[in-house]
C-alpha cells in the first residue's frame, strides 16, 4: 500500500508542478478552465437560477432590446433570451458529452484492437472508417438523422458515428507504435497476456493525446449539433437550444433585431472556443513540443 501512495504522490507533485508552470506560462489555458467551470455550472444549476421561464411567451414584450429586466432582450414571442440561452446550456452540453463519450469508448476499443493485432480485422475496420470518412461528415450526420428520425437521441448517435473514426485512428496509431516497443515486449516476458499488455501497459500511454482530442471534439460536437438543429433536425422548438435560437433570430437580423440571434450565437461560440482553448492547453500540458 505504502508503495503505491508514495509513487502516486511523487508523480502527482511532478504533474502538479508542470501544471502550475503551464498555467502560469499561458494564462489563456487558465481562462479556458474557468470558462469550462462556468459552463458546467450553467448546465447544472442554470434552470434553477434563471429569472424567467424559458418557455413562457409574452406577446406584449415581443422583440424588446436588451434592458435591465431582460439582459439579452426578448424574442418575437416575448420570451426572455437570457433565460433561454442559459437553460440551453444543459441540452447542448449533454448532446456533445454523450456523443463524444460514445465515440470515445467505441473508437478506443476498435482502434486498440486494430492497432495491436492488425491483420484482417485492421483491414476491415480501416475500410469501414475510410467509408465513413468518405462522406463530408456534417452531410453524413444530416443523412443519418434524416433516416433514423428527427430526435435528440439520433443527433447523439449521428454525432458519435462521425466522430468514431477520429478516435479509432488516433488510438490505432498510438497503439501501433508501441506494440513492438521494449516495454510492451518486457511486459509479455513478465507473463502478461496480450490483453493485459494492451489494456494495462499500452493503452494508458495513448490516453494523453486522447484527452486533447476529447476536448477539441466536444467543441466540434456542439457545433455539429447546433448546425443540425439550425437546419431543422433534432431539437424542435420551443425547446431552447442555441442552434435553433440562432435560426429563429436570423429572420429578425435583417430588420435590425440583432439580439435574438446574437446572444445564443455568442454563447455557442464561447462554448466551442472554451473547449478548443482547453484542448490546446491540454496539448501543452501533455506535450510541450507539439504546441502549435
Amino acid at each position, binding site marked *: 500500500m505504502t508503495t503505491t501512495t508514495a*509513487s502516486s504522490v511523487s508523480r502527482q507533485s511532478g504533474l502538479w508542478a508542470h501544471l502550475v508552470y503551464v498555467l502560469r506560462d499561458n494564462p489563456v489555458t487558465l481562462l479556458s478552465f474557468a470558462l469550462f467551470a462556468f459552463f458546467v455550472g450553467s448546465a447544472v444549476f442554470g434552470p434553477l437560477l434563471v429569472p424567467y421561464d424559458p418557455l413562457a411567451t409574452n406577446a406584449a414584450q415581443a422583440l424588446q432590446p436588451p434592458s435591465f429586466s431582460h439582459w439579452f432582450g426578448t424574442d418575437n414571442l416575448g420570451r426572455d433570451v437570457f433565460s433561454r440561452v442559459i437553460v440551453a446550456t444543459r441540452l447542448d452540453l449533454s448532446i456533445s458529452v454523450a456523443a463524444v463519450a460514445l465515440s470515445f469508448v467505441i473508437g478506443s476499443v476498435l482502434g486498440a484492437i486494430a492497432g495491436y493485432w492488425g491483420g484482417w480485422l485492421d483491414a476491415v475496420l480501416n475500410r469501414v472508417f475510410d467509408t465513413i470518412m468518405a462522406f463530408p461528415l456534417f452531410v453524413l450526420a444530416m443523412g443519418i438523422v434524416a433516416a433514423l428520425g428527427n430526435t435528440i437521441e439520433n443527433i447523439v448517435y449521428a454525432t458519435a458515428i462521425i466522430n468514431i473514426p477520429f478516435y479509432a485512428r488516433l488510438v490505432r496509431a498510438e497503439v501501433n507504435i508501441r506494440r513492438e516497443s*521494449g*516495454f510492451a*515486449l*518486457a*511486459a509479455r*516476458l513478465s507473463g502478461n497476456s496480450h490483453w493485459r499488455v494492451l489494456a494495462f501497459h499500452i493503452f494508458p500511454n495513448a490516453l494523453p493525446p486522447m484527452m486533447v482530442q476529447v476536448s477539441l471534439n466536444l467543441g466540434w460536437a456542439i457545433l455539429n449539433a447546433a448546425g443540425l438543429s439550425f437546419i431543422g433536425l433534432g431539437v424542435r422548438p420551443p425547446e431552447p437550444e442555441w442552434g435553433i435560437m440562432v435560426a429563429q433570430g436570423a429572420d429578425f437580423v435583417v430588420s435590425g433585431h440583432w439580439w435574438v440571434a446574437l446572444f445564443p450565437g455568442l454563447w455557442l461560440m464561447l462554448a466551442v472556443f472554451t473547449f478548443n482553448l482547453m484542448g490546446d492547453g491540454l496539448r501543452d500540458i501533455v506535450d510541450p513540443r507539439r504546441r502549435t
Partner: protein
Amino acid sequence: MLSIKDLSVGFRTRRGDVQAVRGISLELAKGETLGIVGESGSGKSVTSFALMRILDAGGSITAGEVTYSGIDLRRASERDMRTVRGREISMIFQNPRAALNPIRKVGHQIEDVLRQHARATRNDAREKAIQALRDVRINDPEARYHAYPFELSGGMCQRIVIALALACDPRLLIADEPTTGLDITTQKAVMDLSQELIRARGMGSILITHDLGLAAQYCDRLAVMKDGEIVETGPAQQVFADPQHEYTRRLVEATPRPDATVRSLLPEDRRPPELTHTPSETPLLEVRDLRKTYAGKAGPVHAVKGISFTVNQGQSVGLVGESGCGKSTTSSMLVRLLDTTDGEILYQGTDLAQIPAEQFGKHPLRGDIQMVFQDATDSLNPRHSARACIAEPLRRLAGLRGKAVHERVEELAELTGLPANLLDRFPHQLSGGQKARVGIARAIALDPKFLILDEPTAALDVSIQAVILNLLADLRARLGMSYLFVSHDLNVVRLLCDEVIVMQNGEVVEAGPTEQVMSAPQHPYTRALLAAAPRPPERLNTTPLLHEVHNA
C-alpha cells in the same frame, strides 16, 4: 586557420538560460585534423553549430571570439556568413538520411550548392554534380544523380552528404558524429574516404565524436570536452597514451580495447576484485537448424537461414553481426516472443519451439528465460515507476504480493546497484545508466537461468557502458546465469563472452572460443569486422606507475 577564443554559447530555454559551452579556446592549423571528443551533453556539437552560426532558435554566442582566416565569424553579417558556409567551411552531420532533403533528387541538391556559390552555371551544373558524386566513389553517378535519399542506403547517403559538403572545395570540413548509426564496416569506409579526400585537398578538418578510439585513429590532435569545457588538448597519441586529466583518463580506460578486461574499463580506484565464473560443460540451450522466414512483398524473406549453436550452463555466448544479419530475429525467437518457422530450441531437453510464442507467457519456463532490451528508455513503461517495472514479473509470474514484492524489489535494486530512493521515480526522472539498471533488475527478478542481452549498452555513453558491463559480469558470477550477448561490437562482446558466433545474412559464418575468433579469424567477414573496428593507439605503460603512486 581557425581560432576560437573563450567561446561561450548560451540557450534560452523554459528553465532559464543554460550555458552549453563555457569559454573554450581552440586553434586549428592549416591541413590539420582536430578531434573534439566528449560524451552526450558535453557541448561538442553546439560548438560546431556556433562557429557556423547555425545554432537552433534561442541559442547565441554569449562571449568570445571566432576567427577564420581573418574573418570574425561572430560579427560577420549573415550575407558574409553565407559565402563562408559551404565555400570556406562545410559540415557533415550524423543521421545522413535525415540530413538530405527527402523530396529533392540528390543531384539537384548538389547543384543547388554549386550554383549558390557560383561554382557552376545552369549549363554545366549537372556535369559538375555528377563529378562531385564520382569524387566520393559512388558507382554509376549518372544514375544516382536522379535518386532520392530514401532510395539509398545510410552509407550511400553519407557519401552524398560528403559530396555536397566538398562540392565547392571548402578549406575546412567539420564532421559531426558522421558515422553514428552506421554499421561498423560502413563506418570505416566512410571515415577512410573522407580522410583521403581531406588529405588530397589539403583541407583542415574537425571530427566531433563520442568515440575516443575513432578520434584517436583519424585525428592529429584531440580536444576532450566535458560539461561545456575543454578539459584536455594535445596530440592524439599523447592524449590517448598518457591522459593528463582525470576525466580523460576515465574516458580512455572505459573505451573497449582489444587488450582490455572488463574490470580495466573502470576507473583505477574503483575496481573491485574480479569475480570468476566457471562455465560448465552441460548444455543449457541447444539451437538446431533454426529458421525464420517472413512473407515479404517481393516473395519470402529468409531472416534466419538454419543456424545451430549451444549455450552451456553458466556460459556466455556473444552473437555478433551488423544490422539486418538476423541476430535480433534470433534473439526474439529464443526468448519466445516470436514463433519459429522451423528448427528446434532445446532448453534442458524441452523443445521450446513447439510451444507457440502466444502461450509461452503462462509456461512454467517463462521465468527461466528473460531478456534485457536494447534501449532502456524504450523498454520501461513511461507511466510506471521503477518499482512497478521491477515488480511486474514478481506479481505476474511468481505470484508474490504485498510485502514479499516490496522486499524482493529492494533486494534486486541493491543487487543491481540502484539506490532504493530512486525506486519511486518514473523513467523520465532517471539517467540512462539508472534506467539500464532497472531493466536488468526486472530481467533477473525471477532468477532466470538464461538471459539474452540485446545490445544492452548500445545507447549509453562509454563511461556508463563500462559500469553496466561490470555489473553484468558480477551478476553472472553471483547468480550463475548463462548469457547470450547480442551486439555489433566485437570489442565489447569479447569482454564478457566465452564463445562468439558471427552472423551474416541470416547464417552463422564463424563460431568458436572468443580469443580464437578474435586472434585468428577464419572467415573473411569476421576479418572485415575486426579490421573495421577503430584501433586506438597503444597505451603507454603508465598504469603500473600510477598504481604504485596510488598504493603509496
